[in-house]
């Protein structure tokens, strides 16, 4: 094939023009900039201090991953319908992914599965129903059963394993939540056969009846608070001397919970890594949006046992720092 001069000239000009067009296209695209992915977070009562570390984790991950994160304003308690409506609204508003705390309920798993077909969802709580149906949606949360067991082990450690005859009161924010059920199961499994008896169970977020008021409960040796809301409620009662001298053990993740530990109102505090819950859930969601090959994975979060004596060690101060943001 012999190139004549004109042909060569046309080929060179055409190649150069093509390169200029491609380059111009790249430059325009770079200058216009790509919109940052948007991720919404749906959690009940998002302004509560128990979410401080979680929100801080979200913020840090958003900076690291270059995404915009919106925490949707909700009420103290979310129903399944409200949550599904919010998911739909956020999807309609064009968010790229959702992070949410699932509402307990029979239909939660099914409805979340349907919603996750439209928009990627990362859960920060396990929605598995009691019959064990799994959502198949990635979940970033602590191992609640293991935390329940660890709480019981801390109690036993303080009593040298001898809790025979001790009366226990168990308090939780919502008796039906998977989180509460598993923690309670873990606690009870360890305490089984140790001679302690559970005198009462209280749900602090349920309707305020005499039955549900901590102050109205019979005297027990120990009060076990299975979540931050119930722990702070128990701490308040101890401070008001309404718990008849019962020792409080519990799980919490707010500065109030730490304060009650610091002031001796709570004997032992288990703190789930809420910073990591926020950081990991958002990081996974963002990676899933940015990388086609990346599939979202959940994570089992760690937890820390806090005692008053070691409350201000360097490591524990960092935990408190995340709660103080």
């Amino acid at each position, binding site marked *: 094939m012999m190139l004549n001069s004109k042909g060569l000239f046309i080929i060179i000009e055409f190649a150069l023009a093509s390169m200029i067009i491609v380059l111009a296209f790249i430059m325009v695209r770079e200058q216009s900039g790509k919109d940052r992915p948007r991720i919404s977070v749906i959690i009940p009562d998002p302004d509560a201090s128990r979410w401080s570390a979680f929100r801080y984790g979200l913020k840090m991950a958003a900076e690291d991953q270059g995404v915009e994160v919106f925490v949707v304003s909700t009420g103290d308690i979310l129903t399944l319908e409200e949550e599904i409506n919010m998911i739909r609204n956020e999807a309609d508003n064009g968010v790229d992914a959702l992070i949410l705390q699932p509402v307990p309920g029979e239909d939660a798993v099914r409805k979340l599965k349907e919603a996750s077909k439209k928009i990627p969802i990362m859960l920060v709580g396990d929605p598995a129903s009691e019959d064990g149906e799994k959502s198949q949606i990635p979940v970033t949360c602590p191992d609640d059963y293991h935390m329940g067991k660890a709480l019981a082990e801390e109690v036993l450690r303080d009593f040298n394993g001898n809790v025979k005859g001790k009366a226990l009161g168990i308090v939780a924010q919502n008796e039906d939540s998977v989180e509460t059920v598993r923690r309670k199961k873990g606690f009870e499994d360890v305490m089984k056969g140790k001679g302690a008896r559970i005198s009462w169970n209280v749900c602090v977020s349920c309707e305020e009846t005499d039955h549900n008021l901590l102050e109205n409960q019979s005297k027990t040796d120990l009060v076990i608070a299975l979540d931050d809301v119930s722990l702070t409620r128990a701490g308040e009662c101890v401070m008001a001397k309404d718990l008849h001298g019962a020792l409080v053990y519990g799980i919490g993740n707010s500065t109030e919970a730490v304060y009650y530990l610091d002031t*001796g109102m709570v004997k032992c505090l288990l703190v789930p890594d809420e910073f990591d819950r926020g950081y990991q859930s958002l990081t996974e969601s963002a990676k899933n949006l940015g990388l086609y090959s990346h599939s979202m994975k959940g994570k089992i979060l760690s937890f820390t046992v806090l005692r008053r004596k070691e409350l201000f060690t360097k490591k524990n101060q960092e935990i408190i720092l995340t709660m103080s943001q």
Partner: protein
Amino acid sequence: MKIKFWEYMGRLKPKGMQSTVMLAFSLISVSIMLVLGVVMYMKFSALSQREMIQDTETLMEQTRERLEEYLIAMRQISDTVYYNVIKENDLSSQDNKIQQGMNIIYEANRSHLRSIAIYNDYGSLMAAEPVASQKEDPDVIHQSWFEKAMEAIENTHFSTPHIQNLFDDAIRRYYWVISLSRVVDFTDRGTPMSGVLLVDMDFSGVSRMLRRINSNTSDTGQYYYLCDSNGEIIYHKKQMQISNGSFHENNIAAAAYKDGVYGEKFGGEHRKLIIKTVSYTGWKLVGVIPESTFTQGMFDIRYFIIMIILLMAMMLAVINRVVSVKISSPILKLNDSVREYEAGEKPEIYIGGSQEIRHLGHSIQRSYEQIDRLMQEIVKEQNERRKSELDALQSQINPHFLYNALDSITWMVEGERNDDAVFMISELAKLFRISLSRGQTVIRVQDELQHAKSYMNIQKIRYKNAFTVIFDVDPAVYTYCSVKLVLQPLLENAISYGVSSMDDSGEIRVEAQKQGERIILSVADNGLGMSEEEAELVLTDSDRIHKHGSGVGLINVNNRIQMLFGKEYGLVVESEPDEGTTVSICIPAVPYTDENRRILEKGHMFGADAINNREKQDK
């Protein structure tokens, strides 16, 4: 595969002069631009890096100054509390002046302060502002700020940020503070005592400064952090990530550096570290610029330079094209005219373009003109030579034959056969008239036959009618062209080799007819004949010794015919021993006209095509 690719590329390479010039110009232009582009980019890149480092240094210098101002302000608060309040008053005085003084200072600086407190050397709280209830057993003497103050009593100590663990906060919050502690002397109920003055600064003042300088760089990967002289981090935007192990920082190494700019490789990435030491505390303000930040900042410039290079390349390609056309066009035109000349046309050789090319054109034209002239001279020489050969051949006939004829006439006159002598002379006259033919080489076939008849009449008289001659002629052949005196040598041979030795039974038969586009003149005798081998030698062996005849061989006749009509024409000899010999003359049927004659006389090389063209035109 690789070899095939290069073979293909080899075939792609331009072969035209214009393409080569343009490609060469383009390659040189692109190479120069690429080099320029790379140099420009490197220059810009170095400049940009230097500017970025300078900007960072300036920003860090300002931040350091603000930090120092902040720390000096704290120190001044501590000094004021100590020298103006504590030293001047008694802790247990009635008017509570120390508390009042601390209160005034605290209120004046409450945006930066978390608390001011005085502890005795046993760790008991002596006074505090704001007034707050102390936590139950805060274990003051084992807190690091207290220990450090007691370790070096003459100094003022700044702690790293920590949670204040002294007072009970009603709103159940925990505060990050930097503790400034020093040993102080105070008087309580008139008793001099020593203790520790603690000024807890709100860490948010420091973190706000660092957050502000970090906020503008979050997209570039550049960041700043603060650590103490041991490398312990005071502020880092990814403090929690460092804590949980998802991010790593080279803070220990950075703390060992003095002020300046350093390059390091950390976490698989090259980066620049800019170190500024904060006075009074020994804290290190560290600016980190990863290599990617420099390249990220250079993307726009990189694209811009590439765009300019491409646009310039496009423009240069156009310029190169124009220049290459300008340079090569005269040469190409010259080449085209030479090609046309080579193809047989006779155009004017192109004369144009630059002086050198014009000179080349002139030279080529002169060369071609010279070649033409030489060719014509050669042709002319050839023709003349051929003509002279022809004339020589023809001249070979005359003396021999004339001698014989005259001998016969002499003999007739002596024998008083006057009528025969007259006939003989008459025939001889015809013979010579045709032989001369005004010097023409090509004559009518009719004249050639007449010449043959005259010749045979003369010969018959000479041989006393020892043989018979029969002319079988198609009159249609009379008007065609023939070469002069071609039959005579054939008849002479027929007589000499054929019938001369026979008694009265000898016979020579002369035939003339038109066969297609050819005229066939044949002479056949019934003489001795010859073998096939001998017949072949008749037309090839010119050195054969002639036993009889004039010595003009058939070869001469054959040559003459072929000279005028071409190699495809000439003699054909057919002979059988004891049967006789037939020699045929084969010539083209060219109508006799003066013009055809003249053309044919120029020779076959120059005349055949012209005659053919004329015939085509006539048809």
